[in-house]
């Protein structure tokens, strides 16, 4: 006499028989594909954007006037200001009072 679960056992047994003829991808093939997996697309895009920004930044900096020249001009201007400054020759109105007669 068939038990209650025999129909289900038969069902899965037949299913197994059908699967027996199916091709199973070899383990080595799966593991090899893992090693060969490429970088994710987002990583490639991010790296490309970084490179473009870096190169663009360098190019932009090359277009800017040199800051060394600016500094020299600043020093020169400063020194001329110092030379012409009235502060160097300025005297207080009561300075004469300090003079010993």
């Amino acid at each position, binding site marked *: 006499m068939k038990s209650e679960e025999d129909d289900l056992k038969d069902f*899965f047994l037949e299913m197994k028989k059908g699967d027996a003829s199916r091709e199973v991808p070899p383990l080595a093939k799966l593991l090899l594909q893992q090693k060969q997996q490429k970088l994710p697309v987002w990583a490639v895009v991010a790296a490309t954007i970084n490179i473009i920004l870096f190169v663009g930044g360098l190019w932009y900096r090359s277009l800017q006037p040199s800051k060394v020249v600016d500094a020299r001009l600043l020093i020169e201007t400063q020194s001329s200001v110092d030379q012409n400054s009235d502060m160097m020759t300025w005297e207080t109105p009561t300075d004469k009072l300090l003079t010993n007669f």
Partner: protein
Amino acid sequence: MTTREQLEVHHKEAWFWARQCCRFQPDLAEDVLQTAYLKVLEKRALFHGKSSFKTWLFSVIRFTAIDMATAQHLHVSKHLGIDGIQLSEVTNSQKEDDAMNYESMINQLPGRQAELLLLVFYHDMTVEKAAEVMETSIGTARTHYDRGKKRLRELILASQLKQAI
């Protein structure tokens, strides 16, 4: 025995389980199995020896399949604009092909019921082991198991009647 050797021992069963977790989509199953093996070999999934290696490996494969199916579901939804699409719906067109198509009949069962029946009847596990794979309580597993058996029996009977006519 090394992890690689253990994977070799269980590879065939693992392949069929991955395929079943992916609702019999071979391409997705291959991706799932690759990812699961990578988790195991890179020790992102650790075997602590609490259960058998096969039970643990099946659990890793199942959760990997769930993660990848979720990702695929979002992808499909984005492109087709369909909300709530399920993996089973993707393969529903296969149902009409063959009245006694085992895979189509399994696909007509709710996910957990299908998984439990496959683990018990196809992979020869006890309900307790199947519950470990699914990381669910034995009580919940038994409920899914009983409902699944009832539903599948109805489907088999309907299919047999259809064939008889």
